[in-house]
Structure formats: structure tokens, C-alpha cells
């Protein structure tokens, strides 16, 4: 079947089997391999992308067909040219990543979280990220990174960043 998905602002129109999961569509049809797959049970969150600007979704628990006509933001779309997104910068500054495998999903979940809660406290961040697993960092530096990003984003005019 034919699906057309707008990923990071660019339209990708492809013929796929209905059973194609969005994660594999992004990785193999769009060549955007920053979206990772870590489990089969919707548990790990390595595959999280943002749909229609606000909804963090697990792209391995969604068919590409369901994204037909929708906007998807992946990790590749976070930076603005050569400038890292405040979330990326914060993960770097706070040592919020080690092996890097969970990082794209973790950052995108956090980006969607900050859209709803621009000023979350530590408990809210921990709750908001609890659909994403990380095996390396113990989460503490990730929480600090999200706090830093929240501080930066609150000071920016609306619409300045994705």
C-alpha cells in the first residue's frame, strides 16, 4: 500500500506492506536510522518519535500506515542546521548518554513532555520518562539534562524551536 509521511518536514511517499512498522519505515524507507528498535513489547522506548508535534509514540508499536498523512519528528530533525536542539545540548552537557542507543527516544519523549509541562519538577520528569529504558546512565543525568533543557526552552520565544 502507498503511504505518505512527512518526516522532519520532508515528505516520504513509499509503497509498503501493511505490516511495516513505522520504526522500520523510518529506518529502511526513509534512511533515518536514528530511530532504534530494542524490544517487541512496547517496553523500551528506543523507537519513540513525536507525531503531529505533540504526541510521543512508540514507532515499533504502530504501523507506517497509521502515520499516513501525519507529521513525524525523529532525532534527525531535532538540530537546527548546525545548532543542537536545547535538549541535545543538555544531554551532552549533563552526560545524559553513554552508549547512545536509548538517547534518540529518550530525547523525543522529553521534548514532547516539555510541550505539556514546560516546568516539570524531578518527580514529574521521572514519571514522564518512565516509558523509556536506559541501561547505562541510571537516569540521574538524563533528569538533569531535561531540567536544563526546560530552563533553556522556557526562555525562548514560542515557536523558536521544534
Amino acid at each position, binding site marked *: 500500500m502507498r503511504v505518505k509521511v512527512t518526516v522532519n518536514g520532508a515528505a516520504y511517499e513509499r509503497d509498503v506492506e501493511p505490516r511495516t512498522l513505522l520504526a522500520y519505515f523510518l529506518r529502511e524507507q526513509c534512511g533515518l536510522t536514528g530511530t532504534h528498535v530494542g524490544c517487541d513489547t512496547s517496553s523500551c522506548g528506543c523507537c519513540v518519535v513525536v507525531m503531529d508535534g505533540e*504526541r510521543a509514540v512508540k514507532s515499533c508499536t*504502530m504501523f507506517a500506515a497509521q502515520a499516513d498523512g501525519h507529521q513525524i519528528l525523529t532525532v534527525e530533525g531535532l538540530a537546527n542546521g548546525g545548532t543542537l536542539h536545547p535538549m541535545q545540548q543538555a544531554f551532552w552537557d549533563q552526560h545524559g548518554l553513554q552508549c547512545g542507543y536509548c538517547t534518540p527516544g529518550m530525547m523525543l519523549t522529553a521534548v514532547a513532555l516539555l510541550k505539556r509541562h514546560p516546568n516539570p519538577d524531578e518527580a514529574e520528569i521521572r514519571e514522564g520518562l518512565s*516509558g523509556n529504558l536506559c541501561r547505562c546512565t541510571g537516569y540521574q543525568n538524563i533528569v538533569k539534562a531535561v531540567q536544563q533543557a526546560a530552563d533553556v526552552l522556557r526562555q525562548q520565544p514560542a515557536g523558536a524551536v521544534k
Partner: protein
Amino acid sequence: MIPAAFDYLRAHSADEAFAHLQKRGADARVLAGGQSLIPAMRFRLARPAVLVDINAAGDLNHLRVNDGVLEIGAIARDSDIERAQWITDRRWSLIRDVSRVVADPVVRQMATVVGSLCHNDPAGDWTTTALAARAIVVVRGKSGTRTVSIDEFLVDSFTTAVSEGEMALAVHFPVPDDRTAGSYQKIERKVGDFATAAAAVQLSLNANGTVREAGVALSAAGPCAVRVEEAERLLVGQKPSADLIRAAGEAASRRSSPQADLRGSVEYKKDLAGVLAARGLRQALSRLGVQV
């Protein structure tokens, strides 16, 4: 893992979805949030020949209070409820509680309440909540649309009153009066796990402080969510007391008939059912300003 191949049909309205289901009958499954269905398909435990995707059916995407009823359409997401304006009102405290502990916060952005009811997992959260809050499910069938009380809707594990070719359109929660509060108490091994045990409680008080209405239900305590009628009977008409809560908790424990699994033994889960029901009652009362 990769699901087995299937035909995909997109429905833009409830009518269209219903027409697809009528045509493809037993081979078809409705795809709403897909958060239970798609993992089952990836393991090839579920292999429907046809998926009827209702995510584009705008007439099923509603979440509104209308004529004394909270209407939750078939593709309203758990996270929509979590973020609704009205949710902070005390009378919705049961629904507010549960909307924050279903699965995990990302899964909730796709998962739907109606989908969860239709899935009818023995350890479901929404099924248990719907029992305690006495919800009604709107089902579209051959002979038109009908309403089914949640007690009749939940038939058996993974089985509901929705027959082949039918679909659930919405769930309706009666708007409780303002002397109502609830609580959802869940023990899970970690975020995203099914409940080891959970209790949903909703209480409405009379002006004199006695219980006017009580809803007490348990998750992971039987083939599907169970209502603790004995506890409800004990509570109604009574002034809340420590003894009353203890008795209601004991009734919940008796009513619980769980299966042993990696989450815990039968004895543990039965005991938890009582502990959680009592805690839920105490919290609901506390939200109503009553300390016992």
C-alpha cells in the same frame, strides 16, 4: 519480530468501520491504539487477516461531558484524559488516578480507553475503573446501536459482549455528584507492567456523611475485572469507620480469585486486594475530607 501479513482497511467514520467489519466478519480486528494488539501481532499470537484502522474516524475521537455523562469515544487516548481540563475536579479522582498509571506515559499517548475495555485483560485498569464507576459501553451491532452495562460487557478473559462484526463506539461514565471521590490503588512490579493487584474505588456521600453509593472493583483478581458487591453492600448507608473499611477490605480479599504468576502467589494477591481496596476507600474518603 514482524507480524504476519494482513489486509489493512482505513475507516474515516464509524459507519465505514462498521461496514468493513460486517464484510470481513471473523477475520477482522479493529485497530485503535494498538498497544495490546500490535505486540500480540509481533509475536504472531494474534494474526488477524484484516485490520480495520479507526484512527482516522473523526466521529470516534471525542472526549466530552454531555448531558450528565462523560463520553469517551473509541479513539480518545488515555493521555487525552490525563490532560483534560475537568480531570482535576475531585469527583473524577478515580479516573484521574487511573489515567496516570495505565501502562507507561508513552504508551498512554496512543492507547485508548475503549480499546482497553474491548481487550478485557484480566489485569486491565480501565475495566476495573469502569466497574467501580458503573460505566456503560455503546456498541454498534447489526440491529443498530445499543448500550451495555459494564457488568454485562465484561464476559470473560479477553471476551466481551461485542460480537463478531460489531464494534464498541464509546464508553459513558455517569457524571458523579460533587460529594463523590474515588481512588485507584495499583501495585505493579514496575511502570508498564500489568497490575499485580489493583483496586478501583468510588464513593458518593450523603449530606449526613453516610455512604450513598459505593463502587469497589478489583483487577488481576479473576478471569476479568471483578466487582466486590459485598463491600459495596457493606458500605452503602453506613457512616465510614475504620471497622467498616476493614470489613470492606476483607470482603475484597475474599472476592479476589487471582492466578499465581511471576507477579506473585495467590495468597499474596488475595491479601493485596484487601489492602488496596481498604487504602482506596481511605483515600477516597480523605479526598472528601473524611479521615478514618
